[in-house]
C-alpha cells in the first residue's frame, strides 16, 4: 500500500482524534473552573464532595473511567444506549477527567492571588463577579498557562486511549491497518501524526503564553 492510500485510511481516524481533543478542551476548561469553585466553596458538603470527585478522577486510570462511562449505563442501570453513544462516552469520560486536573490547576492559581487584589477591587466598588472576571481570572490564567500547556500536551497523547471502547480514532485505525497488512508503516505514520499534532499545540500555547506576558 502506498503512502497516499495509507494516509487516506488514517485520515478518518485523525479527524476523530482531533474531535476528541477539541471537544474535551471546550468542555473541560470551563467545567474545571466550576469544579475548582466547588472545591473552594464555603459549603463543606459541596467542597468535600468535589474533593472526592477530584481524587477519584486523578487516582484511577482514565482508561478505566472510559469503560465505566461506556458500559456503566447498561451494567449498572440496565439502560441500553443508542448506537452513537460510544463517541459520546469518550467525550464525557475525557471531559470529566480533564476537568478534575484543570480544577486543581485553577485552584492553585486562584489561591496564589493576594488578598490585596480583592480588597482593592472591593474598595473601588467592583462586584464579586466583576472582581473575579476582570481582576482575578486574567491574572490567574496568565499564571497557570504553563501547567495548562502540560495537560493539553498530555491530552493529545491520551486521545489514543479511546481505543479501549473501540472508538475509531487514529491509533485504533493504525492498529487495524497494521495487523491486517503485517506492516509497521501505519504505526510510524501514527507516531508522526501525534508528534506533529503536539508540535502545533505547543506552538499555539507558546503564542498564547507570549501574548499574556506583557506584564509582570
Amino acid at each position, binding site marked *: 500500500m502506498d503512502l497516499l492510500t495509507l494516509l487516506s485510511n488514517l485520515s478518518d481516524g485523525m479527524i476523530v482524534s482531533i474531535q476528541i481533543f477539541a471537544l474535551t478542551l471546550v468542555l473541560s476548561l470551563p467545567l474545571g473552573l466550576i469544579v475548582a469553585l466547588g472545591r473552594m466553596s464555603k459549603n463543606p458538603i459541596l467542597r468535600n464532595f468535589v474533593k472526592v470527585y477530584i481524587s477519584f478522577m486523578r487516582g484511577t486510570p482514565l482508561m478505566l473511567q472510559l469503560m465505566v462511562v461506556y458500559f456503566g449505563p447498561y451494567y449498572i442501570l440496565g439502560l441500553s444506549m443508542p448506537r452513537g453513544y460510544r463517541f459520546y462516552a469518550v467525550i464525557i469520560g475525557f471531559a470529566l477527567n480533564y476537568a478534575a486536573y484543570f480544577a486543581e490547576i485553577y485552584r492553585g492559581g486562584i489561591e496564589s492571588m*493576594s488578598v*490585596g*487584589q480583592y*480588597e*482593592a477591587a*472591593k*474598595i*473601588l*466598588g*467592583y*462586584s464579586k463577579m*466583576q472582581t473575579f472576571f*476582570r*481582576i482575578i481570572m*486574567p*491574572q490567574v490564567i*496568565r499564571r497557570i498557562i504553563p501547567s495548562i500547556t502540560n495537560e493539553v500536551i498530555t491530552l493529545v497523547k491520551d486521545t489514543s486511549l479511546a481505543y479501549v471502547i473501540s472508538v475509531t480514532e487514529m491509533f485504533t485505525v493504525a492498529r487495524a491497518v497494521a495487523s491486517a497488512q503485517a506492516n509497521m508503516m501505519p504505526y510510524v505514520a501514527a507516531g508522526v501524526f501525534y508528534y506533529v499534532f503536539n508540535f502545533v499545540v505547543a506552538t499555539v500555547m507558546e503564542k498564547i503564553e507570549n501574548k499574556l506576558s*506583557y*506584564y*509582570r
Partner: protein
Amino acid sequence: MSLLEIRQLKKSFGDLQVIKNISLKVQQGEVVAIIGPSGSGKSTLLRCATMLESIDAGDILYLGESAFKTDQEGKPHKVTGAELKKIRSYFGLVFQDFNLFPHFSVMKNVTDALIHTQNKSKEEAYDIGRKLLTKMGLSEKENAFPFQLSGGQQQRVSIARALALNPKVLFFDEPTSALDPELTSEVLKVIKSLAKEHMTMVIVTHEMNFAKEVANHVIFMDEGIIAEEGTPEEVFGNPKSDRTKAFIKGYH
C-alpha cells in the same frame, strides 16, 4: 454634620481586642493624621472604617448614614446592596503596598472602575484619568504597566485611581512605608497638594514631620484607644500623656 463619625468602635481578632473603644469625627476638608506604635490598631481602624473588616460593636457613619445595622443582640452588620454601594462611594483607600492591578496599564488602572462600576463612558473616564495623571506628574506613563514604574510612581497611580472615583474622604495606610526613602517625598508632595485643595483625608503615617505639616488634627493611638488627640501643635509641641511624649521622642 460630620463627614465621618465613628462611635464607640470595638474590634477583636479572637481573644485579642485590637480596637477597644474608639470614637472620632472627621469634618469636611479636614486632614487627620493617625500616629502610634506598631500594633496599636491603626490599620485595623482604617480597615473597619473602609468596611474591609466587620466590627464587634459601635457604628460608623458617613454623612449621618450608618454603614452598619445593629441586630437584636446588639451586633452590627454591614449594610448591603444599594446602601453598601452608596456608602462605599464616599471613601477611597490608598494601600501601603499599592495593590495596583498588574495586568492593567496605568490609564486602565485609573479608569477601569469608573467605566465598569460607575458606568462612565470611556471618553469621559479617560478625560478624568488624563487630568489626574497629569496632576500626579505621570502624564508620560499612561500606557506603561505597573511593573515598569518605580514604587513612588506606582503609589501615585494608586492615589489617582482612588481619586478618579471622586471620594469624599480618602484614607491612606502608611502610603510611603513600602518606598525607598528617596521616593517618599514625591508621594508626600502629592498628598500635601491634595491637602491644599481641601481634600478630606485620614492618614496613618510614621512620618512625623509630614503629619505635623499636613494635618489639622492628630490622633495618637495606643493599644486600641485614642491616647491623645489635638492640633499638631498640641500633640507634637505639648503632649499631655507620657506615652505620647515617649513615642514622639522616639522619632527625633
